[in-house]
């Protein structure tokens, strides 16, 4: 039951108490439904507010709001962008609740039941440099991806050449064929050649698939209650999509570059998961217990953060510096050589975190740099449209990874 102002009353609401005139005459009995003609009558009689039963929808929104608000504990509640994102996130969660989703319990959110005891970790013996350099195998992570991208970007590349590149990576071949033969593409004939599979799935999607594939092994030592690969990739892709939308909104001609930066913005974290699964789990538990953004928990636990790892990593990988800067500064856009470009990834990350709540992401939204937002010059009301655009694109992009 809740109290509603007469100006906000809509037909169809069920009243939770008798609506009476000043002298006690019952106009609408408890349990009665408000009809359109009641509105004028009530207003005419000077009734200011009344008690109504909460509808299923109201209850979903209330529950969603109470759930979502927790994730905004770390950001300025008065900033209009946060207000917009909050409302959008509440809508998404309410929608899911309406579809039968149950929000994770407080114990789950605070990771109370995670026992994480695989190995000893001592912050004394780690540094971002060591971690980034440690694993040789790692340097092959983007290799197929970058070869593919290079090939894709070159107009002279044939599907045959792409197939050749793909066949260098067995797991990619398997995933590709599985995807091409999935009901998603609804083909009668089984697809058995890599070339055919590429033709069906699409050249652009192929590179994203390659990137997603390489990450699977990175999550072995991480308890799934803390984060799983699906959630991680969903967030990465979301950030990529947001970055691209923001870049397009700003009239950037190379919006694809921002997509890539968004997709890879947490690459440092992947390495941390792989190299320090135990410590990473500690950081994640610390974040969850204390309602802190993961980046803060990393700092407290390791003495450095995932962006410091990516800094070394991307240098090893010989990433173009302009791209690395976007990734390495997504939590510190104003310190980047090109703050406006870094601001795009920064804002995209915050947005992806907010909209990810309905998809089950469990970490509070990281600090939002208001100065970085101002640099973009997008009005706060624009957030609604950006989020709606995102919703449309997300469905299409995520399918590729499922």
């Amino acid at each position, binding site marked *: 039951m809740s109290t509603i102002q007469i100006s906000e009353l809509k037909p169809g609401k069920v009243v939770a108490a008798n609506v009476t005139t000043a002298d006690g005459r019952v106009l609408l009995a408890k349990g009665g439904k408000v009809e359109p003609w009641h509105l004028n009558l009530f207003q005419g009689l000077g009734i200011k507010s009344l008690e109504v039963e909460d509808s299923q*929808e109201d209850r979903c*929104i209330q529950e*969603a*709001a109470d759930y979502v*608000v927790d994730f*905004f*504990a*770390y*950001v*300025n*509640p*008065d900033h209009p962008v*946060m*207000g917009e994102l*909050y*409302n*959008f996130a*509440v*809508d*998404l969660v*309410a*929608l899911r609740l309406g579809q039968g989703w149950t929000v994770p319990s407080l*114990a789950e959110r*605070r990771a*109370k*039941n995670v*026992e994480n*005891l695989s190995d*000893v*970790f*001592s*912050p*004394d013996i780690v540094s971002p440099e060591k971690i980034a350099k440690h694993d040789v195998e790692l340097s092959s992570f983007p290799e197929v991806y970058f070869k593919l991208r290079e090939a894709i970007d070159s107009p002279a590349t044939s599907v045959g050449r792409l197939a050749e590149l793909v066949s260098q990576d067995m797991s990619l071949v398997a995933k590709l064929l599985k995807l091409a033969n999935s009901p998603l593409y609804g083909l009668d004939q089984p697809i058995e050649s890599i070339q055919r599979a590429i033709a069906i799935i699409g050249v652009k999607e192929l590179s994203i698939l390659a990137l997603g594939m390489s990450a699977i092994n990175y999550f072995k030592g991480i308890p799934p209650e803390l984060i799983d690969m699906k959630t991680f990739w969903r967030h990465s892709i979301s950030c990529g999509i947001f970055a691209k939308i923001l870049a397009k909104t700003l009239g950037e001609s190379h919006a694809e570059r921002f997509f890539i930066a968004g997709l890879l913005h947490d690459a440092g974290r992947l390495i941390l998961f792989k190299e320090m699964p*135990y*410590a990473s789990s*500690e*950081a994640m538990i*610390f974040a969850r*217990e*204390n*309602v*802190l953004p993961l980046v*803060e928990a990393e700092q*407290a*636990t*390791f*003495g450095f953060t995932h962006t410091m790892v990516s800094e070394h990593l991307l240098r090893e990988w010989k990433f173009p510096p302009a791209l690395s800067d976007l990734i390495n500064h997504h939590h510190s856009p104003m310190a980047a050589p090109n703050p406006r470009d870094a601001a795009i990834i920064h804002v995209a990350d915050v947005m992806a975190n907010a909209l990810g709540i309905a998809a089950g992401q469990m970490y509070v939204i990281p*600090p939002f740099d208001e100065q970085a937002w101002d640099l973009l010059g997008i009005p706060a009301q624009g957030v*609604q449209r950006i989020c*709606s655009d995102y*919703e*449309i694109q997300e469905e299409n992009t995520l399918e590729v990874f499922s």
Partner: protein
Amino acid sequence: MALNLSSSLLLRRTQPITEDEFRKLRDFIYEKCGIWIDEKRKYLLENRFGSRLKELGLSTFSDYISLLSHGQNKEKELATLYELVTTNETSLFRDTKQLDGFMANVLAPLIVEQKQKNKLELNIWSAGCSSGEEPYTLAIMLHEHMGPEIKRWRVSITAIDISPAMIAKCKEGVYSDYAFKTTPEAIKKKYFVPAPGGLKVHPSAAGVINFQVMNLNDVAALKRIPKSHVVFCRNVIIYFDEAMKKKAIAAFYDNLLPGGVLMLGHSETLHNISSAFKPKFIAGAVAYQKM
């Protein structure tokens, strides 16, 4: 998918805190419990304490700060403040691997050594014991390891926490199912008896523990703690700033007997804080030995 179900919900649910109020509250908290709330955590602080303001029916943070400083119930409110700034997530036998490693590589040799010296005495300090799970776990482990022989020893576990509410809970010694998630079933049966609200620690195991409300910031009070063979301080210093970390670690150093051992939480380190300890990598843990 345009929803627009709720587009007018207000994200702000609490009173705003002014810059000045934030600084005052932050400094107050730091002075009282050594926990430093960084500027970055301003909204988090506003959030947590905002709900408390509502409960108390206060309209501004300034009112709350004056209540803390000179209100009639300031001591009581201080206890609530401690609850709000510290997390008390813990369970019995938390981090079993670390505890086993500690038992096998630190405590067992220590007991042998003490016997050889014919000094049947063992002092442990559990600093920041929260609701008591850690000292009870240590007491039970000692009983398990020493068997009936423990009666001939002078074993003492001094367990301190900043929060009076937590120490009251410690003394009560009653734990719900959640606290037992990593406790072996046999231990549960042997050392706990049913009580309203869960299971209560058996007095035989509880007897070696001395619970006290004490602040790690209060150097004079800490000097009253008996000299220890082992100090346990897990998941506490991570909340401190560097100055306070150094202060706490110095207190542990002063308290430890020569060769004594400090056990920290997994993600905590003495790196950049103290070089007066030697880290020893033992199975499942790092033990910091006083040099």
